[in-house]
């Protein structure tokens, strides 16, 4: 049906407008109906569009809405493009998004800006759909910036708290750095190819007409954009701070959907990266480094949401590792499974925080498993999924990534696989550490908090159950196979099934080893962990300080820039040059006017005499020069 994709995109926008303009006046019931109903409707439309796509034999649906600009021969059109890749993304965005909207009913209950919250969340969905459905890089970029805006608004949702407002700004500004790269990449593509329609760009690069240097430059520039949005080194610093926002926001934007936009972008532009092996190698290395370093940081964090944030960064690193070795479909597969179990983890964390009346420090938790069984059970399932225990979702996707890290013909190597496996071990370790500290062992809660512990209301727990269910079964969809037509797959260096099976077994062993290590360290009151912590105090400080990246940025960038801003731009440029010259001009005008005012004496004779002088001057000039 024509107009279906447009409808899909516009539904959340309508929710934003209605809730943003009227929500506060019409009350929470109305806000619920609009704010949750429209995303659900969008999910329905997405499923419908997906059915049409499948009945049409996976032939991409293209829907042109209008021509944005016509410059010379180049038409910039706003058009939507639905192939299997964007269909998967749209389904994740609307599906997980709708679930999180439902969860938010319980979580945000009684907040004074209830309507504003749902308006922002719907705005986010609108931009995210624009991002995944846009056919042109330009539309994608509008969505890209838009989700950044929604992220900024939602991180700083409780803007009365200065720290939270500052975290929002940090996210926004860090993303600007990446966006600069993205924009430059777009410019370069347009110069080289002459269009911004992504399917045509891929074809042009695949045709081999574009020089390899340009492909490499474009690849690196777009990847810079992706590091900003997807929190990869060196632009990862905003994501942990972004946890200042409401927890459902962290689940939706900063775990399941928005931060995966970079993965989507690179998968979408796979045609470019096939021609740019150097850029691909860079992606793999950065992705793996990010995965490993973030996992080590996650080992020692004490804030439940920060642990999950670093876990997200780490998992995104895995996805980029897959992208870097050419396994685009596998990256999207991990994106897909990650969306469910990470959303479940974040929402479970939200439920814990809700139960403990706002407590986020895992050192003051423990023993919650029996008090909040639903949350605990779903959290356990999701933890197992992310740790890679079979047959849960994370096992399948992560195993695929590790296999391609070793076996891919496009840059796979033993080193990637080794470090990736180590990171997988760390993943299992830090996730079960979290589970042990929060749900098992003895209670370390403050007594007045412990009294009020309560299971969350049904809108929250039911969503947790649904997400946990998907954390189990999401890996059973053979997504890489499904995406074969839409995304290129790498050649294998060796196709020995025995090796593959051996690797799978090894991966399982690693995950189990991680679980047992966590049990060993944190099982009986965490004494062994403390002993290690004291023995390696310096390393612990380095990890707890997150490798001091923020501090380094502060020293290297922020302080010199502040000095330049203050001394050169403010004092020299603004105050001295601009203010000085303007004040000088004003003073000149005032003094000149005061002088000229004296000429206007009010005496008629004087005026007539000056007329005479003027006449003489005009006559002299006329007879001399005319």
């Amino acid at each position, binding site marked *: 049906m024509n107009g279906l994709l447009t409808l899909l995109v516009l539904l959340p926008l309508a929710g934003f407008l209605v809730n943003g303009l009227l929500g506060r006046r019409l009350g929470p019931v109305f806000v619920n109906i609009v704010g949750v109903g429209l995303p659900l409707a969008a999910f329905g439309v997405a499923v419908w569009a997906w059915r049409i796509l499948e009945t049409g034999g996976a032939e991409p649906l293209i829907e042109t809405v209008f021509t944005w600009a016509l410059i010379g021969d180049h038409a910039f059109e706003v058009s939507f493009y639905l192939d299997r890749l964007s269909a998967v993304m749209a389904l994740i965005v609307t599906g997980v998004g709708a679930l999180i909207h439902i969860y938010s009913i319980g979580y945000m209950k009684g907040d004074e800006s209830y309507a504003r919250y749902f308006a922002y969340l719907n705005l986010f969905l609108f931009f995210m759909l624009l991002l995944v459905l846009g056919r042109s890089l330009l539309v994608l970029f509008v969505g890209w910036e838009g989700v950044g805006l929604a992220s900024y608004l939602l991180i700083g949702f409780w803007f009365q708290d200065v720290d939270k407002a500052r975290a929002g700004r940090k996210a926004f500004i860090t993303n600007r750095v990446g966006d600069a790269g993205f924009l430059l990449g777009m410019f370069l593509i347009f110069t080289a190819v002459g269009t911004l329609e992504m399917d045509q760009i891929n074809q042009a690069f695949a045709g081999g007409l574009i020089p390899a240097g340009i492909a490499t430059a474009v690849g690196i520039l777009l990847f810079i954009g992706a590091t900003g949005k997807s929190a990869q080194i060196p632009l990862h610093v905003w994501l942990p701070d972004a946890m200042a926002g409401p927890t459902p926001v962290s689940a939706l934007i900063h775990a399941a959907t928005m931060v995966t936009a970079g993965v989507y972008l690179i998968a979408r532009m796979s045609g470019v990266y096939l021609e740019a092996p150097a850029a691909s190698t860079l992606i793999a290395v950065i992705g793996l480094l990010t995965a490993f370093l973030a996992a080590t940081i996650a080992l020692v964090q004490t804030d439940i949401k920060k642990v999950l944030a670093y876990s997200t960064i780490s998992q995104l690193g895995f996805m980029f590792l897959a992208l870097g070795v050419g396994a685009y479909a596998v990256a999207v597969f991990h994106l897909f499974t990650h969306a469910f179990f990470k959303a479940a983890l974040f929402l479970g964390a939200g439920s814990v925080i809700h139960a403990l009346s706002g407590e986020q420090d895992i050192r003051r938790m423990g023993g919650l498993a029996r008090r909040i069984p639903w949350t605990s059970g779903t959290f356990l399932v999701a933890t197992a999924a992310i740790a890679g225990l079979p047959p849960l979702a994370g096992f399948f996707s992560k195993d695929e990534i590790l296999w391609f890290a070793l076996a891919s013909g496009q840059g796979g190597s033993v080193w990637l696989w080794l470090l990736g496996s180590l990171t997988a071990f760390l993943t299992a370790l830090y996730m079960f550490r979290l589970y042990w500290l929060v749900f098992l062992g003895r209670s370390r809660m403050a007594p007045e908090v412990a009294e009020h512990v309560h299971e969350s209301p049904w809108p929250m727990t039911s969503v947790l159950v649904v997400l946990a269910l998907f954390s189990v079964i999401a890996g059973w969809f053979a997504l890489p196979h499904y995406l074969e037509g839409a995304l290129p797959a790498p050649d294998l260096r060796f196709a020995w099934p025995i090796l593959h099976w051996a690797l799978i077994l090894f991966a399982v062993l690693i995950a189990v080893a991680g679980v047992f290590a966590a049990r060993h360290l944190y099982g009986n009151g965490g004494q062994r962990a403390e002993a290690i912590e004291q023995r390696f105090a310096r390393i612990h400080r380095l990890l707890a300080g997150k490798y001091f990246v923020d501090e380094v940025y502060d020293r290297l960038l922020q302080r010199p820039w502040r000095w330049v801003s203050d001394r050169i731009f403010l004092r020299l440029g603004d105050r001295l040059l601009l203010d000085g010259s303007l004040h000088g001009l004003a003073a000149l005008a005032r003094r000149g006017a005061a002088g000229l005012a004296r*000429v*206007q*004496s*009010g005496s*008629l*004779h004087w005026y007539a005499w000056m007329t*005479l002088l003027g006449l003489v001057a005009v006559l002299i000039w006329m007879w001399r020069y005319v």
Partner: protein
Amino acid sequence: MDDTTLLLALSGLLFVLGLVGVIVRRNLLVMLMFLELMLNGVILSLVVFTQLLGAEAGAVLVFLVFVVAAAEIAIAVPILLLLVRTGHTLDPGAYAGLKG
């Protein structure tokens, strides 16, 4: 010196005398009359050139200037009367309030 030059010199002289008269005389009515003198000087030059070129349009223009002069004096004199009514003097030095 031919007739035309003579008349043009007279025209310029009348204009200059009118302007200087506006400057040097103190009485507002007299100043107004000097303005008329200036206008007469200008009209004289217009007439001379009209005659020189034999153009009817010039004659019409002179007539129009007459009418404008009449309209001007019809406005100027009531304003003067009003001024004297409030200021009780014809000395423009008394009306120097409008200054910068």
